[in-house]
């Protein structure tokens, strides 16, 4: 039974990483006033290029760096569109998701004649303590959350960034370069999401598949709201969702194993656990929502 708990915990750690990284990244982006719903697309694109680089270099760490880079560049694109071109941020995100998916698969076909998946690549080692398997990126993700919290709340640049999301006009009047800050924030957010995408490959399943993000970009988006735009809570949110996710797979297997009861159609109902569970937790703990005031609104200078 204790072993079960450890395995559950291990699985929780595995699945929480992308949600936390992208969630924290998006908290940064949104705190500056920009919404980027293109997380799904960043996941896919960075996962793909991470796979390519890791495949040829056999170095998963290089893959991680590429993932970060791809994420940052995607963030840059989104930043330029939403900050300087005053584009509609949601439309741009929707478009980017489609573009990133399309271009990744086209390249996959060109490179490996496969429409669905890449070859396996080198993965990062994991930390094993007894029955507990810890992906090192889980530790990184938690650290990223903590550091981001410290950055946003304890440093001047964090203050500036938050000001841009609350009241860009005031921020600008006080000498903050709103456009530049938002651009950088979107890039950093993208970079962290890219890291999450890279992790999917080199930290988790060791290959690229065409549905590798499988809606995790949107779950990460929900995580942002869950966190109330607080990076520490985004870590908690990722862990909670990851735990319920692992639980939803564990419970039916355990029932089968111990009672011999066959679970067929009801397996669909078990798949609901992470979503309902998270919603319940939110219902219980949620206080007043405090989204950044100027979220999603372009700041236009005459």
């Amino acid at each position, binding site marked *: 039974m204790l072993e079960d708990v450890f395995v559950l915990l291990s699985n929780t750690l595995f699945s929480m990483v992308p949600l936390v990284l992208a969630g924290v990244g998006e908290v940064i982006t949104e705190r500056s006033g920009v919404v980027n719903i293109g997380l799904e697309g960043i996941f896919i694109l960075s996962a793909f290029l991470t796979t390519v680089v890791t495949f040829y270099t056999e170095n998963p760490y290089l893959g991680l760096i590429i993932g970060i880079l791809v994420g940052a560049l995607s963030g840059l694109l989104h930043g330029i569109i939403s900050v300087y071109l005053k584009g509609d941020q949601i439309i741009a995100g929707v478009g980017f998701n489609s573009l990133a998916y399309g271009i990744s698969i086209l390249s996959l076909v060109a490179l490996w004649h496969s429409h669905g998946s890449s070859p396996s690549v080198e993965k990062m080692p994991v930390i094993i303590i007894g029955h507990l398997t810890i992906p090192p990126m889980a530790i990184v993700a938690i650290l990223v959350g903590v550091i981001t919290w410290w950055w946003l709340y304890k440093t*001047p640049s964090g*203050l*500036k960034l*938050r*000001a841009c999301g*609350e*009241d860009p*006009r*005031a*921020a*600008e*009047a*006080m*000498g*903050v*370069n709103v456009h530049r800050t938002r651009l950088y924030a979107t890039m950093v957010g993208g970079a962290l999401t890219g890291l999450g995408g890279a992790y999917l490959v080199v930290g988790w399943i060791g290959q690229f598949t065409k549905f590798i993000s499988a809606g995790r970009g949107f779950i990460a988006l929900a995580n942002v709201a869950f966190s109330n735009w607080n990076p520490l809570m985004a870590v908690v949110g990722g862990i909670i969702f990851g735990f319920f996710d692992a639980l939803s797979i564990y419970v039916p297997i355990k029932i089968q194993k111990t009672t011999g009861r066959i679970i067929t159609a009801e397996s669909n109902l078990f798949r609901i656990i992470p979503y309902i569970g998270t919603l319940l937790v939110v219902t219980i703990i949620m206080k007043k929502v*405090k989204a950044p*005031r100027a979220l999603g609104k372009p700041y236009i*200078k*005459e």
Partner: protein
Amino acid sequence: MNAIEMENIVKVYPDGVVALKGVDFKVEAGEIHGLLGENGAGKTTLMRILYGEIKPTKGKIRVFGKEVKFSGPWDAIRSGIGMVYQHFTLVPTFTVLENLYLALLPLNPKITLKEVKKLAKEKMKETGLKIPLDEIVEDLPIGIQQRVEITKALMQNAKILILDEPTSVLTPIEVRELFKTLRKLKEKGITIVFITHKLKEVKEITDRVTVMRRGEVIGTVKTSEVSEKELAKMMVQRDVVMKIEKMPKEPGKTVLKVENLWVKDDRGLDAVKGISLEIREGEILGIAGVQGNGQRELAETLAGVRKPEKGKIIFDKKDITKTGALERYKMGIAYVPDSRKVGLVEEMNIVENTILTNLFEVVKSGRISWDKGRKMAKDIVERFEVITPSLAAKVKHLSGGNQQKIMVGREIIREPKVFIVAEPTQGLDIGATEFIRKTLLNLRDQGKGILLISTDLDEILQLSDRIAVIYEGQIMAVGKPEEFTLEKLGLLMGGVHAESE
């Protein structure tokens, strides 16, 4: 030497409005320079350009003789320019301290929060402006927010300080304090540009004054060489009656009665503590007080926007304590809030803003008649001389004064039985101020009951039939205007009972 030289500044807004048509503006180092002009004359626009917030379409700017091109306020701040806005530009969800910190960072990126706190305390001592450092800005009354703004600019070590209508929401005592500060700053060699609509203030504090009109400079004169009347004439190109005649009138029966009203503010603290009052037909009841003493909550409760904790509100003999705002507006109560951000939907056009509180007039079985709405809007624009390219212009593109006219005008045309109006003339030029005040008196003469909330004691004394002084949610005294002097009002507003004096 000139601190500021702006040459041939032209500004065309993206929607095609030509706000400045080639303005020359010079300010000598060390002077207090007044900037005067009707609503929409282009004062704010000119100053926003000087502060680097918006870019001029054309023109040159020199600061202390050096030509500058600002790409943003951060450049202006580094060149020693500070600005206090008409609409405050503090981050509303941050604490005062955080705002100050934010403001100082462009100058000194290494500064710490602790140092800012120390500096702020020093500044407070130096200027006498008291501000609560750890409060969230949006929870503070506007008067206090403004103090934060000024302190902020001073802490930025501004050598040139621009104040855009700093006194429009201050009580005379606060104004006096502010002027003291400004004089002190002047002694230290700081150049000040001071925008106001109040000629008295111009006379009192400025050395020279520039008058603008419709995007052009009419002229710059030495303050000591002109009278208020002359200034007014320069501004509006006609004679202005400075003193409004008020006919004596016997008030009629009570239309609105408030009994033992208790109201909480947004933070859940008691803001109105057991207020009882009556408004009678054909009477203006003035509420004098420093902002943040429960006026807003009182007004909102009377309008039905806020629910009271305790107490009773009787209107026209009916108990309306539980009635919602919409219903009350329909019954004949009108309310002008103290903030245009609340009273207007910036992103909507004039017609849409007109019907905001007049919805019941234009709606028939759920359907809006835009024709009626347009008619109403046109009426307001004509009667109140709103300067706008069209009725379809978004309200956010209007100048502050013109926005104010729409917000007040919209309520007046409805001819309410009870009119609750807060700061009706804030930001209005003298012409418009005169017009609004006359209109209020007219309403009173027609037998309407008016509750006038204002920090402008001149306004209170000039218009009210009775005055109530509010302090910390309680009425300190009620009486006829003749019974009060400016001094006495000031003391009462500060919480000092006349008797105990």
